[in-house]
Each structure stands twice: as structure tokens, then as C-alpha cells.
């Protein structure tokens, strides 16, 4: 019954069972993955977009190159790989299963011819006497044999680690388990972000999908600090956090320490130290050139403030001690950016301890204002990465299975020995599923010792 439809299904099945498809998929995935390592992923930075032509941007957007590992065609390749994997396994597994569960225990002519390792030992002894010796020998030196008598010939079959033939299938299964784990994570987990000021309490975090999520409990930042090595390199970023349920601190989660590489997990949600900054105000006095009309101005770190003359200003950077940057000067200083009312932008440094420099700068630029820096208030905030991933255990299970499976697939071998006594000749055959050269040595050793064992018995 070969209808066209059936033919089509057959060829589809053969297509998915083919190892050529596996090669194609593995190599395609390798090559295609390169794209996403060259083109920035996620929201591309402005500088990058400015570099390439609008046509290119449009093309990349259409093809999904800015988020290519989640694009439909990349996912499709992964699904094809999975189907290929499953189809291959379904096709081959029954055969392997049969080798394991229904071993050929008789050493027939055709089997003997198909095996690479064959040896014969002549022995005039009675088969019945030989039989005991061979059973004892195989049991001691290899594995307990199955013994069968057919037409006056005795057949022995012994094997070691037959199940290791399955290890490849466990490796393949592990790939699928890892996919399942990642699917669980993407369906039931989330990734987010939250900034908390010292002393502030939050109960919502911002998800990557730009939605807000209510945690169901709240989190207070008690303190944030940075420790440095003697050479000035950062040593530790530390947030001290307290978890609150209904406004009350949870005992084991009070003043908990979170540093890079040591997160805090509460109710399956984990908080990771990720960034930090100062959200305190910067203070300035702004006056006319002659020092008249002084006003105090506070500028928040992420925003700008309007000055009396209609210009606006924000702080780019500030330091408590300028001497490390400008030897000879001292005290606090801030780098500010001024947008004048007539649309000009300039950036310069103003000082706390050197009012004459501030005046000098203003004079050089014609009209005021004169800006004096008065210092900053320190109010640190911490940036925490927030994640929940219920699929992660499944992923680790898959990884464990993969490692054990690969080990067994590479370094274990299904070894089989057949022995037959017929007409005064002992025939020994062997086969291994892996590492033939090592098995050859084992086999030759076995045959040699069997030879001596049989010879010894003959001497009374």
C-alpha cells in the first residue's frame, strides 16, 4: 500500500531520522549563533545605531537580529533539533534495547564470522568436564555466563555493562530535559530590577517586560557601602537588606548581607547585587558676577535644576577631594553642565574651596552666573537584580544527566564474550561496543589465561 500520502510521511520520517540533518542543524546553529555575538542584543545603544545605516537597522529589526536568540527562526531550529533527536532515538532505541535485553547467547557460524576477536584452544577433554572449568573461569575473570547445550555443543555467553549502550540516549534525553527546564523558567519565572535608596522600603520591582510586579512583601535597604583595596580597585559592594512582611521585619531576614556573588533568596525570589549610586543632592550657591543675589540651589543627581537667569544645570560628576585630579587644589568639586538660556551648552568644574576660580571662570565667559559648589549629601542607593526561576532545578537535573551520560558513552563499553566447545575445540569470541584496542588486550589476556587454566587441569 504505497499511496503518495504515505510516501510523503515516510520520507518526512526518514528526513527527521537522518544524522545528516543532525550535522546540518548543529553546524547551522553554530554559524548562525555568531550573528548575535556581533550585533548587540536587546536595546541597541545609541552610538551603535548612529554607526549603521537606517536601511540596515530596518533589515536587522525585520529579521529579529536585535533579539535573535528569541527570534522565531532560531527557536524553530532548536525545535527541529529536538524533533530530530527524538526521531533518531525512536528509530534506534528498539534495536539497542534488543541487544541489551535479548542477547544472542549461542555462538553460531555467522556470528563468529562477524566478530573481530576470535581465538581457538584445542582440548581433548570431555565437554562436561570442560564446561565446569569454563564457567568457573568466566565467572572469576569476566562475568557469570549463560550456558546452553545445542546438539552436543556447549555455548557460553557472558557480558559486562550492557546498559551503557543506553548512555547516548540519556545524553540526548538530557538535552530535552534542559529545554523543558528553560521553558518552565520562561513561562513561570521572571527577571527584574529594583533600585532602593538607603532607608527606603520597596514592595514592587520593575520587570524586563517593563511591567511592575508586586513582590507580596517588602524590602528595606538599611545601608549600602563600597570597600576598596589599597590601590583603589573595588573590593566589595555590600547592601544590608531587611525583608518585611506586613511592615514587620522577618527575623531571619533582618540586616541580611548581599554582596556580589552572594545573593539573598526569600520565598523563591532572589536578589542580586548589581549596581549602586549616589542619589543625594548636590548643593550650590549661584550669584551674579559681583556676588549679589546669592541663591542656594540643590540639584538631584539624576535631574537638572533651573538657575535664576533662565539657564539650567546638572551634575556630571563630583568628588570630595579634587587634589587627586588637580594637584595644588583641594576640597570638594563638581563637574557641571550648563545649558544657557540662549541654547549654548558648556561643561566645567566648580569648587568649594576655591571661590576665586569660580569667579574667574564666570568672568572669562562674560556674564554670570557665578556658581560655587557647597558639597553633596550622601544618600546611596543599591541596584538589585531580581529573579525567580522555578525551572532551574530541572535544568540542573538535565546537566547532571548529560555529564554522567557523556562519561558513560565515552568511557564505558559493552563487552561480550562467547565460548563454544565443539569437537574438542574451544572457540572464544569477543566484542566491545567501544575502544576496540583496549578490548583486544583484555581479550588476548583472557584467552591466554584460559589456555593455561585448561592445560593445568589436564595434569593430574
Amino acid at each position, binding site marked *: 500500500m504505497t499511496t503518495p500520502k504515505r510516501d510523503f510521511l515516510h520520507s518526512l520520517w526518514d528526513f527527521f531520522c537522518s544524522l545528516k540533518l543532525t550535522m546540518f542543524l*548543529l553546524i547551522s546553529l*553554530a554559524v548562525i*549563533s555568531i550573528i548575535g555575538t556581533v550585533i548587540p542584543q536587546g536595546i541597541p545603544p545609541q552610538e551603535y545605531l548612529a554607526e549603521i545605516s537606517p536601511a540596515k537597522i530596518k533589515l536587522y529589526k525585520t529579521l529579529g537580529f536585535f533579539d535573535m*536568540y528569541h527570534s522565531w527562526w532560531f527557536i524553530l531550529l532548536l525545535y527541529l533539533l529536538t524533533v530530530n533527536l527524538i526521531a533518531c532515538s525512536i528509530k534506534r532505541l528498539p534495536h539497542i534495547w534488543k541487544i541489551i535485553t535479548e542477547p544472542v547467547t549461542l555462538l553460531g557460524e555467522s556470528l563468529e564470522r562477524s566478530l573481530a576477536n576470535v581465538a581457538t584452544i584445542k582440548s581433548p577433554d570431555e565437554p562436561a568436564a570442560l564446561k565446569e572449568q569454563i564457567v568457573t573461569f568466566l565467572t572469576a575473570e569476566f562475568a557469570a555466563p549463560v550456558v546452553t547445550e545445542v546438539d552436543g555443543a556447549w555455548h557460553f555467553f557472558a557480558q559486562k555493562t550492557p546498559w551503557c549502550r543506553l548512555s547516548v540516549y540519556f545524553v540526548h534525553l538530557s538535552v530535552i530535559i534542559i529545554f523543558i527546564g528553560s521553558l518552565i523558567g520562561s513561562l513561570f519565572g521572571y527577571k527584574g530590577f529594583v533600585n532602593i535608596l538607603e532607608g527606603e522600603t520597596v514592595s514592587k520591582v520593575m520587570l524586563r517586560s517593563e511591567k511592575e510586579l508586586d513582590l507580596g512583601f517588602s524590602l528595606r535597604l538599611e545601608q549600602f557601602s563600597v570597600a576598596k583595596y589599597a*590601590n583603589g580597585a573595588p573590593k*566589595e559592594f555590600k547592601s544590608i537588606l531587611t525583608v518585611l512582611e506586613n511592615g514587620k521585619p522577618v527575623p531571619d531576614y533582618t540586616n541580611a548581607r548581599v554582596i556580589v*556573588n552572594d545573593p539573598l533568596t526569600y520565598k523563591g525570589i532572589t536578589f542580586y547585587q548589581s549596581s549602586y549610586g549616589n542619589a543625594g543632592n548636590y548643593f550650590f550657591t549661584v550669584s551674579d558676577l559681583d556676588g549679589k543675589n546669592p541663591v542656594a540651589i540643590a540639584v538631584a543627581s539624576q535631574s537638572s535644576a533651573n538657575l535664576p537667569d533662565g539657564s539650567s544645570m546638572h551634575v556630571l560628576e563630583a568628588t570630595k577631594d579634587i587634589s587627586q585630579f588637580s594637584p595644588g587644589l583641594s576640597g570638594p568639586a563638581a563637574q557641571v553642565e550648563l545649558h544657557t538660556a540662549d541654547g549654548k551648552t558648556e561643561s566645567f568644574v566648580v569648587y568649594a574651596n576655591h571661590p576665586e576660580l569660580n569667579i574667574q571662570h564666570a568672568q572669562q565667559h562674560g556674564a554670570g552666573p557665578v556658581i560655587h559648589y557647597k558639597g553633596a549629601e550622601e544618600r546611596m542607593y543599591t541596584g538589585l537584580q531580581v*529573579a525567580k*526561576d522555578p525551572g532551574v532545578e530541572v535544568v540542573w537535573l538535565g546537566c547532571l544527566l548529560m*555529564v554522567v551520560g557523556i562519561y558513560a558513552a565515552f568511557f564505558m563499553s559493552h563487552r561480550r564474550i562467547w565460548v563454544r566447545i565443539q569437537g574438542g575445540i574451544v572457540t572464544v569470541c569477543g566484542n566491545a561496543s567501544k575502544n576496540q584496542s583496549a578490548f583486544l588486550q583484555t581479550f588476548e589476556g583472557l584467552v591466554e589465561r584460559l589456555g593455561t587454566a585448561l592445560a593445568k587441569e589436564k595434569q593430574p
Partner: protein
Amino acid sequence: MTSSLLFNITTFAYLISMLAFFAFLASRAKLLGTAAIVVAYVGLLAQTVAIALRWKESYDMGVGHAPLSNLYESVVFFSWTIVLIYALLDIKYKYRVIGAFVMPFALLGMAWAQLGMNNAIEPLVPALQSNWLLYHVITCFLGYAAFAVACGISIMYLIKARSEDSADKPAGSGLLTMFPPVKVLDDLNYRAIMIGFPLLTLGIITGAAWANYAWGTYWSWDPKETWSLIVWFVYAAFLHARITKGWVGRRAAWLSIIGFAATIFCYLGVNLLLSGLHSYGGK
């Protein structure tokens, strides 16, 4: 005795060993082969002591950490793993000449580190302060080293296979008689990758475990991660190639070489040319 003196001795030993291997190939004098391998072992020993000493020196400086924290230390470690894997293969299979195609990789690493890089011991930045660093780096680099050895063997394979194809003069021409038969080379290539693939797999998994522990994401498709997966795909393809007819021998050798090129890109190219989380070695 300081670690940096021992590293110089190591570099020198690898240079001598490589030259002796070349001379061995040219002259076929057994003694030279033995000398080459002995010098390589001396270098390996010196390097082992040097790495241990550098580890101790970092503790003496009060910034104690395993010497695997920057580009200099990782290149030195890579070089050490290459010689180590080669030594294991030599002890097991005794095809000495392979050294002529493996020691250059080890020497290149040491020479680059000693001549071109700052070897100061620096304190560990917060992102690297984790025991996972040790597990992750050791497994990855042992894997990379096995691939380096496989690449050397594949180059030998291609040279030998080509000469066998072009010339029908039997086992004649000079250097090549020293090479193991193509069948053996093909097999050794497979065996080296059989060591490397599980180690790379472990390297990727420990990396994922660390990322999950430190950032809450076991996989974020950052360029380094992606490249390690690319390398993994190439070697998975290599393993399956052996089961598919027509993909053994020359094609397998090419896959092994491409795999090592991808490995090197994963290790150095990503840091030097692309940007991402694994910034050490950058700048």
C-alpha cells in the same frame, strides 16, 4: 626562587623541547625525541611549581586567590594544561612526534604571556570572588587544551593524508615516515576530543551554575557564553560525524581544526574584539 623566574625557565624549556621535536622529525634520531619529551616534562614540572608559588605569593601579598584571574594568568594556565594533556596522551599512546605539533601551542602561550603581558599579581574584583571561578576555569581550560592537542593531531593528519594521496611512493619521503599512520591519527584525534568534550560540557555547566548563583540567570546569551556553545556545537557535530558515513578522516580533521579556531576565538577573540560580561582580559 620566585614564580616569575620559574615561568621564564618554563618558557625556555618549551622552546628547547619544540626545537628538539623539530630536529627529531628531521633526523629521526630516537635520542632527540626522548630529549624533547624529557625537556617538556621538566618545563611542565617547573610550571606546576611556578603556578603553586604564584598562588602562595598572592597570599603573602594579602590578596590571596587562585592564579586564574586575568589574561596573563589564564594564558599561562592554558599553556600548562596543553602540556599536561599532551603528557597524558604520550604516557598512554606513546606517539612522541605529536609533540612537534603540540609544543608550539604551549610555547606560543608562554612566550606571549612572558613577553607581552603585565604579570603583576592583582587583587580580585568582586565579580570574580567565588569558588566557582576555580571549577569553571579549570574545566574550561582542560577542555580547550584537549582541543589544542586534537588540532595539532588533525594538522598532522591532513599533511600525512595529502602526501599519501599525491605520492604513491610507499612510506618514503623523509619527515612523514615519523608520523603515525593516518588511521591512528584519526583515532587519536577522536580520543583527544573525547577528553575535551566532557570537560567543555562541565566548563559550560559550571559557568552556568556560577552565573545563576551570582546573577540569577544561568544563560544570558552574552557573547562568551554563546561562543562556548558554538564550540560545543562544532564538537558535537564532530562526534556525530563519526557515526555518519563519509564524515570521518579528512572532514573530521577539518572539523577539529575549525573547532579549535572557534575555541581560540571564544577564549581570546571575544575578550579582545567583542564586549560582554566576561570582561577580564579586555583593554
